[in-house]
């Protein structure tokens, strides 16, 4: 019998995902240490405008002579922070709503779940466009809230299904017979059993939110300039594609690498945590 950590490490893809995610998170968190320049500093508009990649500027420089490598590092910091917080928010809301639907009366359950059906029918970007059209000039905090509050629908469905199946299990009946309160039952008995599927969803969700935030920032309605984010750097790069393709290219590679990492980790966690798939 191997421990959980050993099983996780033994799984080749999970290991790759774990390494990739750890390195990226570390580099993003310590961006000021790794970045050779300030991400918003216009270095020299005369000699360093749109320089191609070179030892001094590994990813080249942009229109305002800023160092693209430093911008990608700092952009990763913003993108990862937004994704982590938004996913934390949506997982929390999704778990609570799913739990309420699972233990609630038939009316509560069907009202909540039909609302979720409707929300899931609107393609996510369109839903975000509707919200962002109403709240103009959102800051980073508001963006996190909006991404979080539009991302919990799937989780609530998953949690509800788990709660419904757990409800019929012996240990829940036993706890219930002992007269334990609903909230206590949830925290002490249901939550630990929900942890595995929720952790998997959260891990895969981080990759997903990174893609969505990048998309919004690319459209110009996510993270706004001059704050660097991967999506907004790509947007700046698109107009200069013919003269300085490196501006748009590098942040894209960073996104792919990050999302691959979180997907590998999430899939691996599912294989390791879910006894049915072992």
């Amino acid at each position, binding site marked *: 019998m191997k421990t959980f950590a050993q099983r996780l490490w033994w799984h080749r893809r999970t290991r790759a995902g774990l390494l990739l995610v750890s390195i990226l998170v570390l580099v993003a968190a310590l961006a000021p240490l790794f970045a050779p320049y300030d991400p918003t500093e216009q270095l020299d508009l005369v000699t360093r405008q749109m320089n191609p990649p070179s030892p001094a500027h590994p990813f080249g420089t942009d229109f305002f002579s800023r160092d693209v490598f430093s911008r990608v590092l700092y952009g990763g910091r913003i993108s990862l922070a937004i994704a982590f917080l938004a996913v934390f928010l949506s997982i929390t809301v999704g778990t609570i709503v799913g739990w309420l639907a699972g233990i609630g009366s038939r009316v509560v359950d069907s009202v909540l779940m039909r609302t979720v059906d409707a929300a899931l029918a609107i393609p996510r*970007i*369109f839903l975000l466009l*509707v919200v962002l059209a109403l709240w103009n000039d959102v800051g980073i905090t508001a963006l996190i809230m909006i991404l979080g509050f539009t991302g919990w629908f799937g989780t609530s469905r998953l949690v509800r299904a788990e709660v419904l199946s757990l409800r019929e299990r012996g240990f829940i009946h036993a706890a219930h017979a002992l007269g334990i309160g609903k909230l206590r039952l949830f925290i002490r008995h249901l939550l630990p059993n929900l942890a595995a599927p929720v952790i998997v969803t959260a891990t895969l969700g981080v990759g997903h939110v990174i893609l969505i935030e990048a998309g919004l920032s690319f459209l110009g309605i996510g993270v706004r300039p001059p704050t660097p984010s991967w999506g907004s750097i790509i947007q700046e790069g698109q107009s200069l594609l013919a003269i300085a393709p490196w501006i*748009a*290219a590098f942040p894209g590679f960073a996104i792919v690498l990050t999302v691959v990492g979180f997907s590998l980790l999430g899939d691996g966690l599912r294989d390791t945590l879910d006894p049915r798939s072992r």
Partner: protein
Amino acid sequence: MARFIALRILQALVIVFLVATLTFVLLHLAPGDPFGAQLEMSGLANSELLERQRRNFGLDRPIYEQYVRYLSRLVRGDLGVSFAERRPVWDAIRARIPNTLLLAVAALLIDFAIGISIGVAQGTRPGSRSDDALSLVSLTLFSIPVFWLGIMFLLIFAEALHWLPAGGATDPVAYPGLSALGRVWDRLTHLALPAVTLGLVGAASTARFQRAAMMDVIRQDFVRAARARGLPARTVLLRHALRNALLPVVTLLGLSLPILLSGAVLVETVFAWPGLGKLAVDSIFKRDYFVVSGAAMLSAAMVVGGNLVADLLYLVADPRTRGER
């Protein structure tokens, strides 16, 4: 069966109704007067259009009455007025629908062709080296931001090689003077890059789905029985396994639509493709709220419709589901 179909149609209508309610709630949750910003932006203060909109919305009335008015206008197909285009939202949106549908259908075909091929190749020999390699391919495809892939394609095929046009649905200068065949060709060359971009990224999820479906079927007794009868591996695979493994793809038609339409917003922006998504994004910057909400509702209706069609198709394709319910 008729009861089941009626029930599914009813369910679909309920969801569309709820989507409309959701946009109404969002509009009223937002801070301030939804018309204030539009008023400033369009410089149409005190204009007849604005007054009509306010009257239509009955902003002075109690909220439940506003809600009933809103719904009854929706039922009549009135989505409100576009301030920027100075015409009904429906007119602005209607013109864009064929373009988005064309893009979505072309992308879906590419998505299914590539995704199913990869998935079948994987599911036939699960755990093999080729399975491993292909799942890395589909994982990477899944992780590529669709708009970035579009930009990279632009860089390669439009900027560097000059094989394909960089954007739009048709050539603005040459198109009117082209022959019928020339026009079709012009449209196809403009469609190629956006459709391939959208289709490739979508293929990743299709491949995953198809791999699981194929693995499911290949373990079943009738496949083993066919093998035991000594049928050639190729026949077993194509005639017995694949035919059954393709059934679930019908469901995927409904499932992939939301992802496809979300992706279309970004791809249309990259390639200046005059579709629904591009219209919605442009309208955000013009503070033309009702165009955005109208486009969102329409996209949701497409998703609900797609799911309905998928369910009905499944009923036709799989005789086993007909007896139930």
